[in-house]
């Protein structure tokens, strides 16, 4: 059973890796220390993927959201908000489980052995709300209102918090580019400290960035209860053994709420259910 579970998780990691590779397939960027400048960057990718990553071929939706909100001529980002709404309404936090490169990084880091892994702690539930505050303050309000003389707001989440930007863009570009190396200062140091903390915490706690910080996860979570792709528990089959809640690394309980805001649709509960009471439904199954 254990072996089967592990095999299945690696299958998901395979999909995550494939997606990460596909959306970061400008390999010349890693050779020359430059970024892709083609038209594909008009389009957002669904996961948190810094557009300053040398390999990135699409735009990060959180970066794009701040860029439009913070621009002098647009104060609301209909294009990016619409994209997030469309994606969220179709698949919800499936994006977090399968289509986010930074989610994959955290998944892999959590596989590193550590004497005492922390599943939950006092204040865990309250701390999960922090990502909504970060979304409101750093992604929307600050870029909208804290503007320069030209009326432009900086991408404050990217600038002050996002460790994905440091990992995917900052470190490779600074390593590969002499002019970047000469420009680093206290902000670069701060962001590297945040990245180091995130990496350490990811070993101890499962996906700490997704649980407590990620504004993209916060947006998609709102769509989890209404998304077309969702989980359903067959109450007639369910024997109430609690295995599903026990295996959930995001601490959701599918029996209480199969489409919990924290559920990243990783499928661990489905695989663990001894009576196959949990199923995923798309449009076709709902029509039946």
């Amino acid at each position, binding site marked *: 059973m254990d072996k089967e579970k592990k095999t299945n998780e690696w299958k998901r990691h395979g999909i995550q890796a494939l997606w990460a590779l596909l959306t970061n397939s400008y390999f010349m960027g890693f050779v020359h220390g430059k970024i892709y400048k083609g038209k594909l960057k008009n389009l957002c990718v669904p996961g948190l993927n810094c557009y300053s990553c040398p390999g*990135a071929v699409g*735009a990060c939706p959180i970066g794009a959201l701040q860029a439009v909100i913070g621009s002098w001529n647009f104060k609301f980002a209909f294009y990016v908000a*619409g994209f997030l709404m469309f994606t969220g309404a179709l698949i919800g936090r499936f994006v977090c489980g399968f289509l986010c490169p930074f989610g994959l990084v955290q998944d892999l880091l959590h596989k590193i052995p550590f004497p005492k892994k922390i599943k939950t702690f006092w204040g865990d539930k309250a701390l999960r709300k922090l990502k909504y505050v970060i979304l409101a303050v750093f992604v929307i309000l600050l870029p909208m209102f804290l503007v320069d003389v030209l009326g432009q707001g*900086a991408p404050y989440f990217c600038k002050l918090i996002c460790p994905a930007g440091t990992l995917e*863009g900052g470190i490779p570009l600074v390593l590969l580019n002499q002019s970047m190396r000469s420009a*680093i200062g206290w902000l*670069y140091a701060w*962001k590297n400290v945040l990245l180091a903390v995130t990496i350490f915490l990811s070993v101890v706690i499962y996906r700490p960035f997704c649980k407590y910080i990620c504004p993209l996860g916060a947006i998609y979570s709102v769509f989890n209860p209404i998304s077309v792709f969702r989980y359903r528990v067959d109450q007639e089959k369910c024997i109430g053994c609690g295995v599903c809640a026990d295996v959930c690394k995001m601490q959701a309980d599918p029996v209480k709420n199969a489409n919990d805001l924290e559920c990243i649709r990783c499928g661990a509960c489905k695989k663990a259910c001894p009576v196959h009471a949990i199923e995923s439904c798309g*449009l076709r199954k709902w029509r039946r």
Partner: protein
Amino acid sequence: MSRFFRAPRTGVIAAVLGLLLMAFGIYRGEMSVVLEKAINICMECIGIG
């Protein structure tokens, strides 16, 4: 009401609304702001700016 919110119909409506918002954003020219930001190295994002 809660039954309505559990129905996939809400998801489909939200997805269509999302498409309409995207179309309006593209019509307003927001895509060029996204492109301009994405094709230039974002100094803030990488911790330099």
